[in-house]
């Protein structure tokens, strides 16, 4: 089993992170080509490896505004296979509804990807292993996490570009809440709320750090996200080898200040780069795709 590396590297020892922004105006365009070209630029070490794509599948979503779009998931899977990955799994543990089958039907995942069979993993029901949390950001001392997540060679967080009514924004770091198994902690995973959402995000990402992040910002969600917000077209996909840098850049695209999001500010000291001078910006400039997202009054301080 490949227990994911959990060694923390202080920011001054980290190389610059790379974030690529690509314009993508709708889900009908040829996303496989766009995503393959984008991944190619990162020269990812996935040849012969098992890759797990962790989309954001929150709940029943017939309008396609709350979950990572299946077209993006399908194109990403195809791209990793073209890059030589031996196997590309898709897995999530929806937080609010334990009927994962119904969620997959509502997002039409099968329509875009065919029968996934054993290549889809309901992380809520996977076998678990104990992981001792060494970061002590929250008061949680340990979590039982899915063996699939802990065992894959390459983990990709694939959130939707959304604001969040408790955390401010939900992007590739917050998306990792979905790996915490509902069969152990429930639907919702309320123990994380009691331990502190911001702090739990840090502990989870330190324990099972994504190797890569891809944000579906073709259509995002603003306002009372992650479920009851309003669809907001931003027309972008973001890619990066540092989830903190990707999330910071996504905030800047939404005209929000990442350093004012408590968990992102702290993640910038322990998990990755928040500082734009440490982020090598590839593709489109943030200014050319900037799309202000509305936030709840409680989060007005985030607005640039």
């Amino acid at each position, binding site marked *: 089993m490949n227990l994911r590396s959990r060694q923390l590297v202080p920011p001054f020892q980290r190389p610059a992170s790379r974030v690529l922004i690509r314009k993508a105006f709708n889900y009908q365009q040829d996303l496989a080509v766009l995503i393959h070209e984008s991944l190619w630029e990162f020269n990812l070490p996935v040849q012969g490896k098992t890759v797990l794509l962790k989309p954001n599948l929150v709940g029943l979503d017939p309008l396609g505004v709350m979950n990572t779009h299946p077209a993006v998931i399908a194109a990403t899977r195809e791209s990793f296979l073209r890059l030589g990955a031996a196997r590309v799994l898709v897995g999530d543990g929806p937080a609010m509804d334990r009927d994962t*089958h*119904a969620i997959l039907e509502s997002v039409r995942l099968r329509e875009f990807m065919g029968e996934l069979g054993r290549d889809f993993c*309901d992380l809520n029901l996977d076998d678990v292993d104990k992981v001792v949390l060494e970061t002590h950001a929250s008061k949680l001392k340990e979590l039982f996490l899915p063996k699939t997540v802990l065992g894959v060679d390459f983990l990709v967080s694939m959130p939707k570009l959304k604001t969040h009514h408790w955390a401010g924004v939900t992007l590739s770091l917050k998306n990792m809440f979905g790996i915490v198994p509902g069969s*152990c902690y429930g*639907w919702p995973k*309320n123990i994380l709320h009691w331990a502190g959402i911001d702090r739990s995000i840090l502990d989870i990402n330190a324990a099972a750090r994504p190797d890569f992040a891809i944000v579906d910002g073709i259509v995002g969600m603003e306002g009372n996200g992650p479920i*009851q917000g309003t669809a907001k077209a931003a027309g972008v996909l973001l890619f990066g080898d540092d989830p903190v840098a990707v999330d910071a850049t996504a905030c800047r695209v939404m005209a929000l200040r990442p350093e004012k999001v408590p968990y992102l500010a702290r993640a910038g000291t322990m998990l990755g780069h928040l500082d734009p001078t440490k982020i090598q910006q590839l593709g489109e400039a943030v200014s050319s795709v900037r799309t202000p997202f509305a936030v709840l009054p409680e989060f007005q301080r985030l607005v640039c």
Partner: protein
Amino acid sequence: MTAGLFTDAGLAVLKETQNGDGGWGYHPKSRSRIEPTCWAYCALSSANDSAQVSACSNARRFLLSHQQNEGFWAASPEMKTGNWVTSLASAVLLHEVESEKAALAGISWLCKDYPFDSSPLVRLLGSLRSKTRVSQHNDSYRGWGWTPRTSSWVEPTAFALLALQESRVQLFPAAASERRKLAVALLYDRMCPDGGWNCGNPRVYGVAGQPLVLPTAWALIALHPFPEHECKSQSLAWLENEVPKIESPGSLAVASMCLETYGKKLPAAKFSLHDCSPDSLLQDGIHILAWVCLALNTNRNWPARVGETI
């Protein structure tokens, strides 16, 4: 496939997938866990067939051997803290004389397990913190959480109510009656504005939450023994209206058991449970296969089954 043929085939698959330790994982060949073991045991024992005796006895032994000294069960054998599966294990073990003592120990633990959100101190602190409330439900009601010392939620509260059956209440700790009353009040308080339940957030920032099939069906099954209430009829109407839209066998099975409990006919759905193959249901989980077997079993005694449909 007829209901009888499906049930026979489904039970055979359940027996084939039972692990050597007597339990079931969520999927074939995965580690045994409490929840799928409870549902598989329930499906096999409801068959009332001598062919299932050995599998049931092994399952019971697995459950009994994984009960902790304090009376609770943990979701996974590696975990050492009790949680919501204690309700399920207690409920299914209460039916057998030989496991009744263990079930009562579980129920005793449940009666002492109070969620934190409804504690007087947390409520006082909450009232001082902010005047703009994220949600508007009544924190004085106490149900059960998924994990101890967190908040009350609909499904764990429903499962606990199923364990605290009225017919056995004389065996339970004195607190059981009060806990039942508070839990029922909590479920009614957490109902979504137009009927039905989601996980337990009927409104967030003033926006009505969307009900879901599984929490609604479990809540209604748990509330069945209690007096008529407009929330029940409103939620039953929501569920009946929702059945034609159901996409998954798990939700359809639990909705079917719920409506049957209330003597209601299952409205036409997009698919029939009889037409599901037991092997394909395994992809969704052992518990889903067990739910479908239970839903199609006309001899089921738990979750409750009440006579003829109307």
